């Protein structure tokens, strides 16, 4: 093997806390060979982003500091470099792209200005504009001359990430650090960006450090993988050996928790997790949730006379029904109208069409009339950090729905909150604590307990596990399955993640542009998709198996 482009040896990073230094990165060492893609994979808090910022020397000075180790770029240690020399390395020798393309570009500067600025910073002013156009061309952006004059808000998320990549590669860096570059993108866009990165790696001869939590992306992209956990590398290996014969227990757990599309091919419904008798609703019983011709449009902006412009139709003519003990999955990409549908059936946004919740037609009900109906349906949101009041104890948060609907005495409500905490796998002692004392997975359990407080028949789960690490996600999904089996809950399960939908649902509706394009039993939709769009969605999901990855272009490096 030739000399590594980048080698990190014994890197330690300390966090400054009021109680003294606290080590967050312990002796991390790895090498990146020329033309190689190294994946740093791990769950939240594993130290993968800290590692990348340390290499760029962009750690926030007030809170994080490199305590020991060396970072060598072609043999030269970057840590002792003076600032001016380090600036030449940043963007020149090592470039970086980030997770959030929506916020990573300056909103008040044109795409062209931001691109040429990067080129000028390292390669002088000569024909920077022409070079910028060539770079947009290289990242397969059509009509690059026009795009140069546009501003970030005029571009889609995928397009912005292409601009970020063009900016990063514009000075032909030796190393590209990509920190979760596709996590915020739709799955079909993710597939395009990953392909683009693979192709450009060859064209530009860049080595890549790819940081991700998604083992599917690792399998698609990596030559070698380092698994991080709590600031340490637990296992480093070539991608094929890592997936086929993982040495460490943690790696095995991580891989086992990854949902695989096609895992339930040939099986009916979600897996059984309890011995409770299956809920077979008597056919005479009506659906818990019924929607016919449901439409939602958001009003347009007012013109200067105060008149409304025609609105944007978020959902158009959607129909479905959901019975007791069953799960209907709404799957689609951002802007498909799946979340809006979820809000509409709870009466949270104005809608047109017919919606029946447990036999009550809710179309046109006033807020007051809606109240008793609302008890029957609850919602679990995506972000367990934002959906709990930080100043309200967990017990009070769970009991609040009961208090709002004036159910029971305060003592009874406390008793019920304790019982619900036990029900979702937490301890009743936790009731007195506050949300910040809990992890993301525990918080989502608390949100589930709160949703269960009113004994609803329907739970709308909007991307409820999207913010959780895979290992935690699997346990929360199992809890939801268990509650369904024992309590006969109906779930309207909204997700962009095809693998999660496959695991959880009896029936599936695929949404696009506000309409349901394909619906049916989970088996029918997943095993014999009729629509091209459904097939496209399924094909775009990264497969967590490096031996089955898409054919790669020849390595030009």
């Amino acid at each position, binding site marked *: 093997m030739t000399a590594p482009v980048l080698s990190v040896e014994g890197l330690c990073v300390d966090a400054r806390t009021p109680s003294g230094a606290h080590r967050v990165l312990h002796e991390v060492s790895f090498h990146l060979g020329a033309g190689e893609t190294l994946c740093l994979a791990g769950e939240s808090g594993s130290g993968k982003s800290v590692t990348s910022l340390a290499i760029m020397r962009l750690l926030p000075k007030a809170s994080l500091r490199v305590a020991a180790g060396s970072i060598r770029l072609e043999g030269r240690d970057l840590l002792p470099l003076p600032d001016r020399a380090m600036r030449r390395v940043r963007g020149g020798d090592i470039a970086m792209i980030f997770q959030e393309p929506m916020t990573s570009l300056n909103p008040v*500067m044109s795409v062209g200005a931001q691109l040429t600025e*990067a080129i000028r910073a390292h390669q002088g002013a000569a024909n920077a504009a022409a070079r910028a156009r060539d770079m947009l061309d290289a990242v397969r952006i059509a009509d690059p001359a026009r795009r140069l004059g546009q501003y970030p808000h005029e571009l889609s998320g995928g397009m912005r990430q292409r601009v970020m990549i063009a900016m990063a590669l514009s000075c032909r860096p030796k190393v590209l650090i990509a920190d979760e570059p596709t996590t915020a993108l739709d799955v079909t866009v993710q597939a395009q960006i990953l392909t683009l990165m693979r192709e450009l790696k060859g064209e530009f001869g860049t080595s890549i450090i790819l940081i991700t939590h998604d083992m599917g992306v690792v399998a698609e992209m990596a030559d070698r993988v380092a698994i991080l956990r709590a600031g340490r590398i637990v296992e480093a290996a070539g991608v094929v050996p890592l997936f086929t014969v993982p040495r460490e227990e943690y790696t095995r757990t991580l891989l086992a928790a990854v949902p695989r599309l096609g895992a339930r091919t040939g099986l009916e419904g979600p897996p059984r997790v309890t011995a409770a008798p299956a809920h077979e609703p008597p056919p005479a019983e009506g659906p818990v949730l019924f929607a016919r011709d449901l439409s939602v449009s958001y009003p347009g902006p007012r013109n200067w006379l105060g008149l409304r412009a025609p609105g944007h139709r978020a959902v158009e003519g959607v129909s479905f029904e959901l019975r007791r003990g069953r799960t209907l999955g709404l799957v689609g990409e951002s802007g498909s109208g799946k979340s809006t549908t979820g809000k509409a059936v709870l009466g949270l946004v104005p809608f047109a069409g017919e919606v029946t919740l447990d036999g009550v037609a809710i179309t046109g009900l006033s807020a007051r009339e809606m109240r008793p109906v609302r008890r029957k349906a609850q919602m679990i949101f995506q972000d367990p950090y934002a959906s709990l009041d930080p100043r309200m104890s967990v017990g009070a948060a769970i009991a609040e729905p009961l208090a709002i609907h004036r159910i029971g005495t305060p003592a009874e409500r406390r008793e019920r909150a304790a019982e619900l905490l036990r029900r979702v796998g937490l301890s009743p002692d936790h009731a007195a604590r506050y949300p910040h004392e809990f992890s993301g997975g525990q918080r989502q359990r608390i949100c589930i307990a709160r949703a269960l407080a009113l004994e609803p028949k329907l739970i709308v789960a909007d991307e409820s596990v999207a913010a959780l690490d895979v290992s935690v996600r699997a346990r929360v999904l199992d809890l939801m399955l268990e509650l369904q089996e024992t309590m006969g809950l109906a779930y309207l399960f909204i997700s962009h993640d095809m693998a999660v939908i496959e695991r959880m649902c009896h029936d599936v509706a695929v949404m696009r542009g506000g309409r349901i394009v394909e619906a049916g039993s989970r088996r029918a939709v997943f095993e014999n998709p009729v629509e091209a769009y459904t097939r496209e969605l399924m094909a775009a999901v990264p497969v967590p198996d490096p031996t089955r990855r898409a054919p790669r272009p020849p390595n030009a490096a």
Partner: protein
Amino acid sequence: MLALFARRAVQAALILLGVAAITFVLLYALPADPAVLLAGRNATPATVASIRHQLGLDLPLPVQFWNYLVNLLHGDLGRSFNQKTAVAPLILARLPATLTLMAAGIAIEVAIGLTLGVIAALRRDGVVDRLVMTLSFVGVSTPQFLVALLLLYIFAATLGWFPMSGYGTPAHLVLPAFTLGILGAGWYARVVRSAMIEVLGQDYVRTANAKGLSAPRVVLRHALPNALLPVIAMIGIDIGQFMSGTVVVEAVYGWPGIGQLAWQAIQQVDIPIIMGVTLVSAFAIVLGNLVADLAAPLIDPRIRAA
């Protein structure tokens, strides 16, 4: 952009109409009868009646308001009771002095506030930051007349660097302009500091650093324009503060602007002048906000699109 301008212009016109109506009603709520005031102490009821007829005060109220508006559109603000001349030329003659004072005041306010705010944000929680925040607190909480007297005592009476009062040379402008600007500077320093701290934590600032740009370029080219948006909105609102500030400052420094004119008119119950100054001030405030509204999209392309 054009639609935005049209919408704002219509709103501005409606606000001015409202101000005209309110000042007109206030005039009639006053206990003083202008005809009696004009006629003087020894006038007979017949003289008062004839003056009343002459001024159109015997007409029904809506007709009077209509005439008042028509006159306004012709630039006629009525006649001063005491000075026996038209109000519009009186105000017009004094406007340059006040506008000069305000422009200098705003320039000082923004220059000091912006510089200190940016420095404080970059040195967050450091000694410089604490010093700036303390100073700005003192600046914000000191009454304007006190600042005026202090500046006069130190720089005019004791050091003799600047004249005590008067108008005409740039030296005359310095103390009044600083008196006007210092208070706002403290306020601006705080707003700029918090806006900058927020912007410096944004992802695109990290991107700019990752490109290898120099620190001044990251701060001036990437962070500052984003932090300026709230400041621009503030300048628009600030014009009103400035108008009332000029009354005090012009009185203390003997600055011959419309603030001083208003001050004298209030003492003499010279209603047409008070109304004229009120309208001109309202016009300046509305215009200031209009300019701020139209300046924001120049910086922020997202507003331009909306």
